[in-house]
């Protein structure tokens, strides 16, 4: 570190996150490198380094000879201010080189609130924000991740996006880039060629026109770009790359552990859940593969914790076998095994009890809605009986800490449904009273609510979000209903951020101007309550001639052309419409194992049949 940077690092909080040098970081000889790839995560080091997707793509890209992928994170406010004052450009951790030295600058986008941070990182790296202001092949700005299923609000800033899973398509786009660079192609030629790769979306190759009322009139591809961009998946997930040599941070991060992805996709069809719809179909790893990968990674990283991750780990067929195998390995070594929130059923409770012999923490359930009626509407296939039964087993087993997650503002929700949350929490409390193994320790039941946000590619993509006032009214209703139950704590997330998230999630291309405006007003790291400010958004929307409610609280007619309709996530519009109707009828749709609902995702598989 030179003195200027050393001096700066001494003035900021937790400087270790800005310097790299961690165990397992990849350093290559620049003489052997022809494509330099900056993998940018638009959040802090602590969040980004906890992200499995980033570890995977870091490994995949660095396994390519001649390609050097480095990590870039968003600095915390103190550091960002100092860098700007000193005119020091944002650098990549491995080499310490500024963003300008890279061929490709790629962002991983998992949530909409990171959008302003993308602009901030580009600016800190002295890279022009808009794609049209970057005429050459160098500094190609790309993006991948869950948000790409509607990336229209960021479309003007990215040259190229990846829809779906990145393992293969990233490699293909980088190979093509290598060729383009060697042969001296123009950027336009590269983008035209790249758009032929399945899963690649080049926003500049689509013209969007609007109706007088502001809705999208037409999405017109040009220069041979496909009418619909089809998402990519890795069909052979068992053989899919897994980062067994992850970079091990030398400073504390959020999830500092091995995260084993047991399967991708989800067999459940919760109607509010975007990930459950955009990651279909289910593809699993075998317990043997997972055991091998888990052990190898634990050994290579030296971690003391392993987490089994997926959208719904209880649904993993080999869970029991896998847990037994992992426990045999972990227990004698003092390594703890952690499971994410499980379904409330007997099988899961049995697993939980076995696993938690290593370490006992709280139990988390997500019934999402307070009444059976509403749970049927959202297709959350959990009954009150399941939940209370699971709680009983937990209390008998000595747990005394249960967290319950709910959403407020789901379609068709009434006050009765809101009060149903309180009823359910009370029943959990009574269950504890009747069945607790040791009552002297007391019980902690935490109810958390967040505001429902309608997301693209779900059966609820047409729904209105309730207003903030209405959300707060329902919060008050619930607060009041819970106020007489001492052992229940109620936490609610403020709806300010949800308001913006909803507008961005279903935004169109014009919203890009709003994002830039908010960034110019100082917006960055906005998923952090420390930095989020609603007023900037409320000022920026009208300043750009747009109405935030048009995107958030407006219900879309089913025949409206939605801004993301050229993104094909393999689940058909017909299926989503059908699911929406079933929601209103309160009819459950069986999970993929009980019966295929014909969503369309099977078409991504060679044989055309789901085997999840």
């Amino acid at each position, binding site marked *: *570190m030179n*003195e200027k940077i*050393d*001096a700066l*690092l*001494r003035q900021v909080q*937790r*400087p*270790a996150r*800005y*310097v*790299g*040098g*961690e*165990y397992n*970081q990849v350093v290559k000889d620049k003489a052997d490198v022809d494509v330099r790839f900056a993998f940018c995560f638009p959040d802090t080091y602590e969040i980004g380094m906890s992200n499995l997707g980033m570890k995977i793509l870091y490994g995949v890209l660095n396994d390519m000879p001649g390609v050097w992928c480095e990590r870039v994170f968003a600095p915390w406010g103190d550091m960002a201010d100092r860098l700007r004052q000193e005119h020091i450009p944002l650098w990549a951790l491995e080499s310490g080189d500024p963003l300008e030295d890279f061929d490709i600058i790629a962002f991983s986008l998992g949530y909409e609130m990171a959008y302003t941070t993308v602009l901030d990182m580009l600016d800190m790296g002295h890279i022009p924000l808009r794609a049209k202001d970057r005429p050459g092949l160098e500094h190609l700005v790309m993006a991948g991740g869950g948000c790409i299923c509607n990336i229209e609000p960021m479309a003007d800033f990215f040259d190229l996006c990846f829809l779906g899973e990145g393992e293969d398509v990233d490699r293909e786009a980088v190979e093509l880039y290598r060729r383009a660079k060697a042969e001296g192609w123009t950027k336009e030629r590269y983008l035209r060629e790249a758009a032929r790769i399945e899963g690649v979306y080049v926003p500049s190759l689509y013209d969007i026109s609007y109706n007088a009322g502001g809705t999208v009139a037409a999405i017109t591809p040009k220069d041979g770009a496909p009418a619909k961009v089809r998402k990519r998946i890795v069909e052979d997930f068992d053989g899919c790359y897994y980062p067994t040599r992850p970079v*091990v941070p*030398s*400073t*504390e991060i959020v999830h500092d552990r091995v995260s084993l992805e047991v399967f991708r996709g989800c067999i459940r069809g919760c109607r509010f859940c975007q990930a459950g719809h955009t990651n279909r179909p289910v593809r699993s790893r075998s317990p043997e593969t997972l055991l091998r990968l888990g052990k190898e990674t634990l*050994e*290579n*990283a*030296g*971690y*003391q914790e392993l987490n089994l991750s997926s959208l719904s780990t209880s649904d993993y067929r080999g869970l029991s076998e896998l847990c037994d195998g992992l426990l045999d390995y972990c227990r004698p070594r*003092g390594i703890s095994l952690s499971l994410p929130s499980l379904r409330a059923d007997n099988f899961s409770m049995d697993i939980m009890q076995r696993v938690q012999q290593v370490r006992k923490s709280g139990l988390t359930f997500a019934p999402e809605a307070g009444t059976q009626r509403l749970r049927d509407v959202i297709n959350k296939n959990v009954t009150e009986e399941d939940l209370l039964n699971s709680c009983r087993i937990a209390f008998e087993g000595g747990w005394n800490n249960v967290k319950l997650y709910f959403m407020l503002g789901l379609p068709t929700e009434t006050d009765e449904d809101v009060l149903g949350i309180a009823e359910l929490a009370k029943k959990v409390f009574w269950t504890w009273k009747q069945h607790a193994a040791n009552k002297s320790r007391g019980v902690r039941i935490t109810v958390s609510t967040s505001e429902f946000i309608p997301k693209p590619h779900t059966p609820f993509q047409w729904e209105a979000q309730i207003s903030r006032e209405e959300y707060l009214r329902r919060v008050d209703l619930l607060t009041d209903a819970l106020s007489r139950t001492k052992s229940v704590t109620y936490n609610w997330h403020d709806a300010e951020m949800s308001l913006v998230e909803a507008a961005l999630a279903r935004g169109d291309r014009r919203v890009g101007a709003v994002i830039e405006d908010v960034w110019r007003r100082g917006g960055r790291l906005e998923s952090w309550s420390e930095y989020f400010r609603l007023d900037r958004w409320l000022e920026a929307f009208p300043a750009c001639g747009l109405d935030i409610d048009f995107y958030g609280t407006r219900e879309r007619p089913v025949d409206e052309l939605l801004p993301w309709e050229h993104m094909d996530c393999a689940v058909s519009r017909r299926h989503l419409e059908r699911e929406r109707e079933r929601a209103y009828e309160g009819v459950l749709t069986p999970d993929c194992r009980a019966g295929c609902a014909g969503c369309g995702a099977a078409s991504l598989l060679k044989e055309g049949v789901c085997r999840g």
Partner: protein
Amino acid sequence: MDKLRLRFSKTGRAVYISHLDLMRTMQRVFSRAGVPLKYSEGFNPHAKISLILPLSVGTASLCEYMDFALTEDRDLAALPAALNPYMPEGIEALEAYEAPGKGAELRWLRLAGVMKGGRDAAFYRDFFARSSIPAEHRAKRGMRTDDIAPSIKMARFTDIDGGAEAELILHAQEPTVSPELMMTALGEDAPAYFRFTRLEAYREDMTPFR
């Protein structure tokens, strides 16, 4: 094997790793290298390791010491070579041996460093040659002012471009005097930028600490 000691260096990018983070990092290094640390009993077992003298973030060191215990016998002479491939950049195990005495025997440290954007060598020389040097520091109960003069055994300064080079011998434990505290004592004459490296550790009688 109990009462073992590791001497290691912490330089380069590793100087930004904090004390607590270093503890965790070391545990992982041992785990990766397959050298089994002894763990405490109980619900939340933690490795029995202790870093003798906390090192402030930004200061480098060629003489850090960590006490530890292993669950099995190991060739101690071969231990540094076994650990080093598993270290993050900038940390290097130098020597492992049975601790000849308590960590508290470490009393003096020799350091070298640069001080820039302040006064020249002559000024610092005079300042630290005074018989009494009050310095305010954070103590258990609020701020406290101590005379650090008796804790400075040696303070040599030479002029370099933009400031001075310093070589110091400071009392390291009971009381602790760090370069940072010396800079505080300088008040308005403190340099804008300074950077130090611990070179060697001694016992009270200035025999080398091991």
